[in-house]
């Protein structure tokens, strides 16, 4: 088969495959118990067609088709479990309940776990809005100078500055070393995270600025985020859009942070939602005139600073 014929085949195959998939998807939405069986059969047939076409499709198309099939399978499973109720999952639940009842040692352990959770809950900065948070909110969480993990959740319209400062209230907090951050559900905020001796994990950020030095940076399900990073590995995004990357700002330099003078990004972001040769539409580098230079974040002008720095200021 000539390359043109292969291309033609791939074209027709992909479009007819897409059509069948969307048709099945719409039928699944309106399906009842009776039609589950026939739909399952058709998904199988579709799967067979795809396997037969292996080698004649571009690998990206092949993957996309596989993904669609998986999605169909999943919604079919959901439909099955909602209509039939006697699935593996339901069966497992039934097994689980008696096992916890019989396992008395588990009940003995429970108190210690609750104690641990409350203890560790103090490492969480959460449920704040419209305020200015400094490193002092880390004080009192640990008596040791160990590497610690901090979770930051549910913050909106705020500035969080974890950089060590000369302020006395943060003296103790200054010696704490952060080694992992788990961050989720942040809106319209500036997060100055400073140096993290490990990885940063972010979920559900909207309209935020993040400044950090770290080993690894992963961001999921977020939109309109400007990330200023000092990082030796590739930062990654997954299921994100309107993300802009920039180098760690010179103005917030810490001894640990290396600043290079590149106008280009000193790191290469990867978009796991766009695994192909073309550039990802979900991120770009910040242009020179878009970079924020004024990082003198005082408590007094919180709203103004947010307005100036956030990627999507309120109109």
């Amino acid at each position, binding site marked *: 088969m000539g390359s043109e014929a292969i291309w033609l085949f791939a074209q027709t195959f992909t479009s007819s495959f897409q059509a069948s998939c969307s048709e099945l998807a719409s039928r699944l939405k309106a399906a009842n118990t009776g039609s589950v069986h026939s739909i399952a059969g058709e998904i199988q047939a579709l799967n067979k067609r795809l396997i037969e076409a292996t080698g004649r499709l571009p690998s990206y198309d092949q993957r996309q088709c*596989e*993904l669609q099939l*998986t999605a169909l399978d999943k919604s079919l499973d959901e439909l099955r479990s909602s209509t039939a109720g006697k699935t*593996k999952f339901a069966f*497992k639940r039934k*097994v*689980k309940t008696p*096992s916890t009842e019989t*396992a008395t040692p*588990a009940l003995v*352990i429970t108190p210690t*776990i609750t104690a*641990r959770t409350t203890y*560790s809950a103090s*490492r969480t900065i959460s449920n704040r809005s419209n305020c200015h948070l400094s490193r002092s909110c880390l004080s009192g969480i*640990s008596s*040791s100078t*160990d*590497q*610690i*993990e*901090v*979770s930051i*959740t549910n913050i909106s319209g705020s500035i969080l500055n974890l950089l060590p400062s000369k302020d006395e209230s943060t003296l103790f907090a200054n010696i704490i070393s952060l*080694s*992992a951050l*788990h961050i*989720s559900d942040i809106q319209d905020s500036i997060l100055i995270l400073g140096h993290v001796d*490990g*990885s940063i*994990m972010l*979920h559900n950020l909207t309209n935020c600025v993040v400044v950090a030095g770290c*080993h*690894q940076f*992963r961001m*999921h399900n977020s939109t309109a985020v400007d990330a200023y990073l000092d990082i*030796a*590995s*590739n930062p*990654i995004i*997954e*299921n994100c859009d309107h993300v802009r990357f920039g180098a760690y700002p010179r103005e917030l330099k810490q001894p640990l942070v290396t600043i290079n003078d590149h106008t280009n990004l000193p790191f290469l972001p*990867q978009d*796991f*939602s766009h*695994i192909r040769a073309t550039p990802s539409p979900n991120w770009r580098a910040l242009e020179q005139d878009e970079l924020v230079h004024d990082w003198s974040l005082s408590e007094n002008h919180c709203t103004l600073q947010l307005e100036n720095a956030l990627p999507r200021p309120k109109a």
Partner: protein
Amino acid sequence: MGLLTIIRKSRQKEREMRILFLGLDNAGKTTILKKINGEDISSVSPTLGFNIKTFIHRKYTLNIWDVGGQRTLRPYWRNYFEQTDAIVWVVDSGDRMRMRDCREELHNLLLEDRLSGASLLVLANKQDINGSLSDLEISEALDLPGIKSHNWKIWPCSAVTGLNLIQGLDWVVEDVAHRLYYSSTNYS
């Protein structure tokens, strides 16, 4: 190639194990493998795709497949299930928010026919970080005692300090060897 080489090669082949490293993203799968091999861990990027590592451990050749854990990559895990002798499930012990997610992914994995019989080693990673859940807490959170289909064990470990990495690997190799090469472990 002499006869001895051929014999040696075939014996080596017999003593191969295929181990799959899985877990959510940010668990530390790649970092653990790099640490075990004495490589630099300071610039490990999130895995796009997979890495293969082959090395000898306790007279067994381990073929280790380290597959990326990002959500977009998880549907591809199944491509690596064939002929797997052991699963190493790596957990970020500090990631309280996603323990549920972690439990569901693990239990879904164990339903897979092609993985039936494989030994399961759970590594509660990042124990060097203050605030991480203990192995006991992870065991509860992931409902490990509820696993009857696989021979499992959990080890608290740290990819940064190297704590328990070798011990964990020892357990899993021992467990697979006991199953596959029972006669040969007896005299070796």
